[in-house]
């Protein structure tokens, strides 16, 4: 059901990239505001200035990192959907691991392996929680038990089946 709430695949990349950027920008802004406030020299105006400076310098960088992660993840996810012809939790886990690996590509092979493992485990956790919630919430959508299966309730099978009364067969109205 939630697959219909998202964009179709190639456009999903742009959407996820933007969503990740917005999340990083706003979340990073709040985080850096607190951090800059705490780390600034004493005095209220200085603290506010430090907070503002931290937001201005750091939150776009955090947002950019988020956007790169989201865009890369979505790209690999869509590629996997295209080649495997199915959408399942393994897509997300594989693309999380691959994203972690690719984005650490300039730090050497051990760093790539570590980032890939972290990314895969993180995405596996997210997918596992999603599946768990689906299982829990599936109980309330269970069908009611079927009614009685007594064939006598269906009527006499020897009489012809008609719509309406048999006297009005020539009339349509």
């Amino acid at each position: 059901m939630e697959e219909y709430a998202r964009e179709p695949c190639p456009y999903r990349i742009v959407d996820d990239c933007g969503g990740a950027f917005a999340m990083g920008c706003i979340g990073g802004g709040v985080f850096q505001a607190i951090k800059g406030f705490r780390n600034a020299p004493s005095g209220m105006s200085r603290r506010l200035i430090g907070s503002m400076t931290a937001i201005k310098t750091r939150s776009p960088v955090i947002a950019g990192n988020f956007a790169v992660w989201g865009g890369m993840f979505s790209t690999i996810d869509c590629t996997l959907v295209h080649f495997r012809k199915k959408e399942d939790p393994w897509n997300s886990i594989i693309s999380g691991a691959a994203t972690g690996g690719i984005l650490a590509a300039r730090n050497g092979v051990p760093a790539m392996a570590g980032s890939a493992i972290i990314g895969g485990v993180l995405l596996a956790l997210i997918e596992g929680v999603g599946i768990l919630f689906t299982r829990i919430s599936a109980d309330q959508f269970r069908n009611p038990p079927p009614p009685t299966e007594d064939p006598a309730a269906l009527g006499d099978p020897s009489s012809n089946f008609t719509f309406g009364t048999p006297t009005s067969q020539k009339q349509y109205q």
Partner: protein
Amino acid sequence: MSDDFLRKPFSLAPAPAADEATTSNYTSGASKFSSGPVSPYLNYDSRYLQRAQPEFIFPEGANKQRGRFELAFSQIGTSVMIGGGIGGLAGVYNGFKATNALNQTGKLRRTQLLNHIMKQGSGTANSLGTLAVLYSACGVLLQYARGEDDHVNTIIAGSATGLLYKSTAGLRRCALGGAVGLGISSLYCLYLLAQERGNSSSPKFL
């Protein structure tokens, strides 16, 4: 398809009797058809099926048109990607210029080029994306506050974006940023209005 049937008056009555009398020799089948009982599903004025507006089925509880919030993430993502592309190209150019000036070759040159591309690309992507986030946030807030989505929202959100983005750089530059935002959003709105004048049924993008 001609609309002739729309100009004629619609009548449920069978064909006139004079016609029937003159042509009864060879249209007995047709006259029999018109006088007999007709199914109510066939006996339906087809003008009711013709509507000027196309009709769509919407899921329950969904809006008829996508608002600013649904478009915000796509806009932000588009501007981040465009910024990354432009910044990356500029980084390639600047990197070639810097490495040629310093006579760097081989592995050093490759690393320097990558550094330039990464730095400029992420810088441009971040600033364009931040602008898009500010614009989208202002637009969404305005849409919720005013309860409608029109060109006034676009202009106000554009000006507010410029003002906010330059709000810490002094009063003059703040005003300059606001003026730039106002100018760009006004130009965009004029473009949209001209397009709407051109074809009245053009879709709305922003």
